[in-house]
């Protein structure tokens, strides 16, 4: 096909109409690149077509131009977000969902934390309780022990109704004290237990308990008698004999 034959074939007209098969269109493009006459012929067809279309132009509505310009000012949808509204609402849903989930988990966390604290307090209380039970069991064991002597301390003229029992083990030397009745103390005063060993008073410890309970006192190897005096808070090195409340002797 010569250049002239190509120009006169009508293929250039079909090329401008995009009606040529791909291979023939490529051939036309190659020829246009190589030959100015082909380029000029195509340009003439395009110009004629443009002039023909302009000659038959129809004015669209006056406001169409503004509508188009406004349309272009709205953001272009990107192919990745083909359904932006749906995507956004999904995202919003996800965010709200995560928010609720976080709040729920946080609530659960604190509830759990509280439960753990409660459980640990209960565990500590239980351990204390077990220890108390063990102590009490030990106290009972000692009191029931064959070598334990129960010494009744009876009220003296200062408090005739006072009554205290001292349990003293002569093998392991442990000493316990149970109050049956003791008058209330003035402020700043404390009861102190004494053992009388060879007529000399030996400190056997301060009373820290209320009535109806048992308290462990200082261990004693020897004792002839027991007495309780009222002493200033914190106890004294020597008993205040005038303030003796109860007294009991250890029977041989």
């Amino acid at each position, binding site marked *: 096909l010569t250049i002239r034959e190509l120009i006169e074939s009508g293929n250039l007209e079909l090329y401008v109409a995009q009606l040529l098969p791909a291979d023939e269109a490529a051939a036309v*493009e190659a020829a246009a690149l190589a030959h100015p006459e082909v380029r000029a012929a195509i340009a003439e067809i395009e110009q004629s077509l*443009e*002039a023909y*279309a302009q*000659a038959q*132009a129809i004015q669209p509505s006056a406001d169409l*131009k503004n509508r*188009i310009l406004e349309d272009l000012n709205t953001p272009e949808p990107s192919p990745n977000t083909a359904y932006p509204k749906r995507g956004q609402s999904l995202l919003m849903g996800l965010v709200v969902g995560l928010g609720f989930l976080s709040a729920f988990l946080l609530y659960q966390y604190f509830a759990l934390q509280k439960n753990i604290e409660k459980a640990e307090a209960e565990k500590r209380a239980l351990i204390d309780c077990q220890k108390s039970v063990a102590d009490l069991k030990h106290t009972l064991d000692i009191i029931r022990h064959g070598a334990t002597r129960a010494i009744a301390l009876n009220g003296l003229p200062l408090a005739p109704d006072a009554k205290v029992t001292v349990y003293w083990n002569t093998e392991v030397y442990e000493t316990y004290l149970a109050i049956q009745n003791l008058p209330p103390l003035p402020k700043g005063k404390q009861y102190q237990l004494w053992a009388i060993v060879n007529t000399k008073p030996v400190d056997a410890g301060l009373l820290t308990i209320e009535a109806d309970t048992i308290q462990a006192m200082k261990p004693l190897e020897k004792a002839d008698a027991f007495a309780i005096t009222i002493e200033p808070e914190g106890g004294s090195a020597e008993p205040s004999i005038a303030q003796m409340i109860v007294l009991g002797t250890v029977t041989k």
Partner: protein
Amino acid sequence: LRLIKKGQDILKKPPVSDEQIIRSLLDREAQAMSLLYDKYAAALFGVVMRVVNSTEIAEEVLQDVFVKAWRNIDSYNAAKGRLFTWLLNIARNAAIDATRSKNFNRQNQSIETIVDIAAHDSTSPNPETIGLKKLTEQLPPEQQTLVDYIYFKGYTQSETAEALNIPLGTVKTRLRAAMQNLKSLF
């Protein structure tokens, strides 16, 4: 009187060159679309009207065409053809797509309708195109129809041959003759 003179000056102001419009479009200048619209909207609207035959749909299509042009100006290659040819291809495809859409109410698009539209001057014409229009009317009706089918309505050669009831082999030669005729008119 001065206002009328000014108005005439505006009407007569030389059209902006394609190169200027393309550069403006590529630079994303605000005035670019306005220039493109002023130069080609009416011509493209005329083409689209031939296909969809409804002002409402044609305006929707035209809107689509300009949006596509704005977004795809990067793909336009001046070495391969004129700006109008590129726009015409977009417009033709968009118009054909519109006729295939579900909402399109297929209307009778007989040759008479097309000739009607071609002859009908719907709005005040650009004074410069009055002369051109007369020249166009000198183109034999069968050649006008052929050019409409091939360039504006997107008919293939065989569809054109069938519609015009002419042998397939003669479509190309008749198209060539019609375009030569057009060239001599403008």
